[in-house]
């Protein structure tokens, strides 16, 4: 008890000095956060598992993104919880009709989080963003478009899956409902492949062509163009 009281007397007597010293300690720690390698943390998110390649053609350019799923790989389990398949990654390609524009005028920005990646390309008055999100056993890929002013643009968006042949297109949802609500905004989509599972096993490439035109954009906002969901098939009987 005596010690406790003595300690309190000491504390009460020197509390102002203790606060000043504590303040200096916090300042010192803050200073350390500015020194790389000590408490400083790079704010950039790891993007190493994503790869980006660009190809320039006469009338269009292609940006190809590939992802290695790493530790987040979705797995397909049998009813007995035995692992049947782990998806190592996927590849996605955006082809932009570029007949009237120079590839070199485009700027790109990518941002990856733990389970999603955003690829954005911009050219003067438009931006096109692709967002891919990895879920437990499916991937969603969304496209949205932003323009500062009235823009007419035709995009050919293509996805190609050949190495990961157990991927099938489960659903392609295009914002047709939104188009009805906004008549100045037109989207068309089509699938250039048949949903033939046997075809998938042939490792043939699959393409989704998405064509959209946007007219008379008046609002400063992102337009959701399409949302694609890619899920994984279970193994066919002949393989199991």
């Amino acid at each position, binding site marked *: 008890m005596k010690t*406790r*009281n003595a300690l*309190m*007397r000491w*504390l*009460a007597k020197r*509390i*102002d*000095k203790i*606060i*000043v010293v*504590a*303040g*200096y300690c*916090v*300042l010192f720690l*803050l200073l350390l956060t*500015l020194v790389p390698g000590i408490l400083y943390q790079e*704010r950039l998110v790891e993007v190493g598992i994503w790869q980006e390649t660009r190809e320039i053609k006469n009338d269009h350019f292609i940006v190809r993104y590939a992802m290695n799923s790493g530790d987040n790989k979705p797995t397909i389990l049998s009813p007995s919880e035995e692992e049947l398949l782990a998806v190592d990654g996927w590849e996605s390609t955006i082809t932009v009709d570029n007949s009237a524009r120079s590839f070199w005028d485009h*700027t790109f*920005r*990518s*941002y990856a*989080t733990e389970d*999603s990646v*955003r*690829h*954005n390309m*911009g050219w003067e008055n438009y*931006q096109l*963003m692709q*967002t891919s999100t990895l879920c437990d056993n499916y991937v969603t890929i969304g496209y949205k478009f*932003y323009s500062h002013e009235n823009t007419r643009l035709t995009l050919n968006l293509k996805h190609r899956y050949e190495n990961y042949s157990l991927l099938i297109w489960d659903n392609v949802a295009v914002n047709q409902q939104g188009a009805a609500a906004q008549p100045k905004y037109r989207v068309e989509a089509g699938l250039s492949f048949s949903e033939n599972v046997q075809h998938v096993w042939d490792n043939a490439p699959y393409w989704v062509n998405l064509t959209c035109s946007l007219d008379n954009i008046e609002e*400063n*906002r*992102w337009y959701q163009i399409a949302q694609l969901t890619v899920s994984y098939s279970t193994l066919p009987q002949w393989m199991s």
Partner: protein
Amino acid sequence: MNLNHPLDLQTWQGLYVDLGNNRSPYDTLENLTADARATLGAGWSGTDAYMYYTYPPMLMMIHYPFAKLYALFYPPVPLNFSPVGVDPYPQVPLLLNFLFKLPIFLADIGIALLLYKMTKRSEKTVVAFLFNPLVILVSACWMFDSIAAFFLLLATYLFERKRYDLSAVSLAFGFLTKIFPIFALPIFCTEFIRQRSWKFVRYAFIFGLVSALVIAPFWSGVKLSFEYQAAREPSGLTPLNFTVVLQEAGVSQSTLDELKFAILPVIGTFLLVMGMSAIYAYLSKKEMSLRRKILITLVVYFMVSKNVHEPHILTLIPFFLLELHESSTLDKRIHYHVIWILPFIYAAVGVPLIRFLYGYIDPNVLRLFESQALPSGIVLAQGIVLGAVVIMFYAALSSLLITLIRGKPPVPIEALKRLRK
């Protein structure tokens, strides 16, 4: 009821839709932030998060039942947030306005009741608070600072009544609503130490425990919110908000971005730590009422904070009114009026005031009042007025600080009564 700040209303609307869908607004914040970080060339892309729900969790917990009620009448719709750097003009039903503002109005009434009790039934003080134009502007049209101010005032009241545990819980609720009440924690703790009591350990523990229990389930979102608040560019009524002048002077955008998003936030953090440490050290041994100590702490906080927005000043008002009730002088009365009038003018010119009426005016008309749409001469005049207000406000805070520190300690009311007897 349909008066709002357009940008903040987008957040309240999103909050109600998220909660109606049983979705955490922090998830939406993380998603919007990733979008913002991937966006090219927009004004806010240099910040650490999209300006959505960047507050501690208490507000969403208060509004959860209201949002579920709202969802019964208006099923949640897909959200469409404005791109970074673009002003939104969401149109919302009157019910959302009513439900969102209900807790704010209740908090204002709570502050009035506490002032009534803490001033021994001074109706004048209650009227001065409830009819203060800045309080009306902030609570009726803008922000929820009243709720945080209520919890801070309640913590002070309970502390004075020696209900320390409840005081710690109330202070934690204040911090969990808006961050700034945490800066009062050292004042409460040093009050114990000054009285040579170990109760500060229990007080700090209860505060920490309540805060941790509420924050833990939402840690990643709260962390992102705090990162955003720490890294956001200096703005509002602070001298650190001088990059606007440099922009007018033709300084390049990349230099401005370096200043706004890298250099000034660091300087701001250092200033905050130095300023608050100095005032805590100074007040730790001073004999003066707790209310005045908290008023001084808030004044210093607004002097060293890099983001001093007009609604924040609301918190000063009840503590200032308590000070005026205890020892009113002409000097203090002038300071009181200057302290609320200047933020009011800043909002009226900077937002500007007409944009609060957007629930009643066509957004296309209001877009004419956005700074990018105004003629350069008007923007320049607007900048000069805002700059002058910032300088005057800082001078007023400095002068008020000197007045409060030099002023004689107020005579405790009980001692005054004894003297009269």
